[in-house]
């Protein structure tokens, strides 16, 4: 490894500089240390690596294409835009990359009860999917409000054999579901594996999820070199917890490539109705790691807001906090309105209905591309498909579905 690399983190306690770590109750510490060990062992085990490779190919459907968005490029009259199409993955987003990795780890660790949190239900569906595939018990914590808002994902989880536990504590949304999953874990440490859905949580999750998602960037790098014979000029990805963004960015961190993580600006960064933890948050400790958080001056966590259910988490993976402080990655944001506009334009010009999450990334690409030259290249992570968002968008546009 290079000395001056951005890829060296985290240290053995899970720190990315100030950020990361393992801020969990003592009951969990031995388990988390065991998990870390199991993960390190697995990483160097060729059998494990081959299993991941095989499931990525045959089950997820990797590799995902790198697609030249010709019509959007012409429309914007700026840099060449490529979509990394993880929306084509089984279950419709990048979430499954991580789930396959972790379920294989759980199998190695002989834990056959899987728990997870979910907000909009995308991660819940991906977890229930891999649990079905491996025949493991599956318990999904989901806020009561989210259950009402995301009925079709709830039903999918049930079809897949998953059990949904409604979370009424707190505000009944994602962050409360994560608390509840942690409580379950503390209570069932022996047979239970907690399958966290983004590059957050206590060490080793942020590093592990990043690693499992890095296939995105690895493929993209190979693909763009194949197609254009040069590295891209910029990478753009949306940020919820930050897993799809890290997955794309990580393999390019030491290359001469600009990177933009796009947070949800919701109704705008001025008020509180956004989920821009990096742009508007301050460092704090939540869900097992130190990172930028939306919080009040007393350290109480605030709810995020975004039209996109997958982005309204009040925190962000710790590696992003570090990359931001290092100045390696630029963190910007798109509002609900901007994302919806990008959603519509992308559908109309490319015939690809993106999820609302990557629509935030696209909205930023709309601005960025115009400032760049025609021979420059942007890769944007199209990390999810929009099927799940049809109702939300229809509501917003005032159409009955």
């Amino acid at each position, binding site marked *: 490894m290079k000395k001056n690399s951005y890829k060296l983190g985290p240290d053995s*306690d899970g720190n990315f500089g100030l950020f990361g770590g393992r801020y*969990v*109750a003592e*009951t969990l510490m031995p388990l988390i240390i065991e998990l870390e060990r199991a993960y390190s062992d697995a990483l160097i085990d060729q059998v494990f690596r081959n299993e991941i490779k095989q499931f990525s190919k045959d089950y997820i459907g990797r590799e995902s294409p790198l697609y030249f968005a010709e019509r959007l490029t012409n429309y914007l009259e700026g840099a060449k835009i490529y979509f990394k199409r993880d929306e084509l993955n089984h279950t419709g987003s990048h979430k499954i990359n991580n789930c396959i990795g972790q379920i294989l780890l759980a199998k190695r660790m002989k834990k056959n009860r899987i728990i997870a949190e979910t907000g909009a239900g995308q991660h819940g569906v991906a977890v229930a999917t891999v649990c079905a595939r491996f025949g493991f018990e599956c318990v999904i914590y989901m806020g009561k409000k989210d259950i009402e808002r995301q009925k079709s994902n709830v039903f999918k989880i049930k079809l897949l054999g998953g059990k949904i536990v409604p979370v009424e504590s707190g505000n009944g949304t994602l962050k409360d579901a994560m608390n509840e999953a942690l*409580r379950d874990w503390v209570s069932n440490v022996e047979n239970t594996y907690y399958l966290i859905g983004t590059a957050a949580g206590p060490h080793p999750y942020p590093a592990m999820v990043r690693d499992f998602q890095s296939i995105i960037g690895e493929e993209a790098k190979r693909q763009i070199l194949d197609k254009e014979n040069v590295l891209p000029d910029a990478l753009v990805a949306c940020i919820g917890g930050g897993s799809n963004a890290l997955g794309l960015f990580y393999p390019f961190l030491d290359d001469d490539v600009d990177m933009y993580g796009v947070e949800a600006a919701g109704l705008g960064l001025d008020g509180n109705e956004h989920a821009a933890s990096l742009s508007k948050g301050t460092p*704090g400790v939540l869900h097992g790691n130190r990172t930028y958080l939306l919080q009040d*001056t007393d350290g109480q966590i605030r709810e995020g807001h975004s039209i996109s259910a997958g982005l309204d988490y009040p925190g962000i993976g710790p590696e992003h906090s570090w990359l931001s402080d290092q100045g390696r990655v630029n963190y910007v944001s798109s509002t609900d309105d901007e994302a919806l506009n990008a959603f519509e334009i992308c559908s109309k010009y490319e015939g690809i209905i993106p999820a609302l999450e990557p629509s935030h990334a696209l909205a930023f690409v709309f601005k960025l591309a115009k400032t760049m030259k025609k021979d420059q290249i942007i890769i944007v992570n199209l990390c999810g498909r929009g099927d799940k968002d049809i109702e939300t968008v229809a509501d917003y546009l005032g159409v009955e579905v």
Partner: protein
Amino acid sequence: MATRISRTFDELKSNSQTGLITYLTAGFPNQDLCLDIINELSESGSDLIEIGMPFSDPMAEGPIIQQSSKIALDNGHTMELIFDLIKKFRTKNSQTPIILMGYYNPIYQYGNENFIKKCLDYGVDGLIVVDLPPEHDSELCDLTIDIDLDFIRLATPTTDQKRLNIVLNKSSGFLYYVSIMGITGTKEPNLDILKEQVIKLKKVTDIPIAVGFGIKRSDQAQKISEFSDAIVIGSSLIEKIMENYQNNKEDLVLSEVSKYIKSLKAVI
């Protein structure tokens, strides 16, 4: 340096008594009644008092303590109000050790040094920070080394021998033994196993051992008191307060608390 906590345990020991530690969430059920309850606790026989610092995301708590936190936050709880509470308590009581218990983020936002200074100024005796494992607590723990503030760590059924050494290093005041694998106020401990575990602990440390997390009934309290230095009562106390308070029997809260504490104290 003998802190209020170690003095209390020394005294209990010399009287061959098991200590009773009670937990109450700051600002619950409201700021005034909270102060009255704390006073009542110490008067009824609570040897040490833990004051919970409400947090929006109390990931180690069961539903009861969660709810008490939420009520306190909805009431407009702030860190300053906690210190105000302690200040008022200390005007009448300079004996009973006060331990602040909670999650790291509110402390971190308050500023660690500022927080420690306030604790000293207002007469706080110990700190329990649930989500600060030994690997990460030096930024707070190290600030308490030369002062009269105990940094109390937790051990659990999952803590193995090797890890125990890490936990015990720099522990002071007492060791909080979590009697169950789980969150507050949910499961009940298996007393035989618990006994074994505490006895093992006592072989490797001289520091007093308090057992908490699953204790509800006086028969449990009685049995656990036979092999531990203190027992912690939390969820069951909050539950009693909640019942009476929510049924508009506010006037009964204090007498019920007193009755409950005395009944426990009587058997341990």
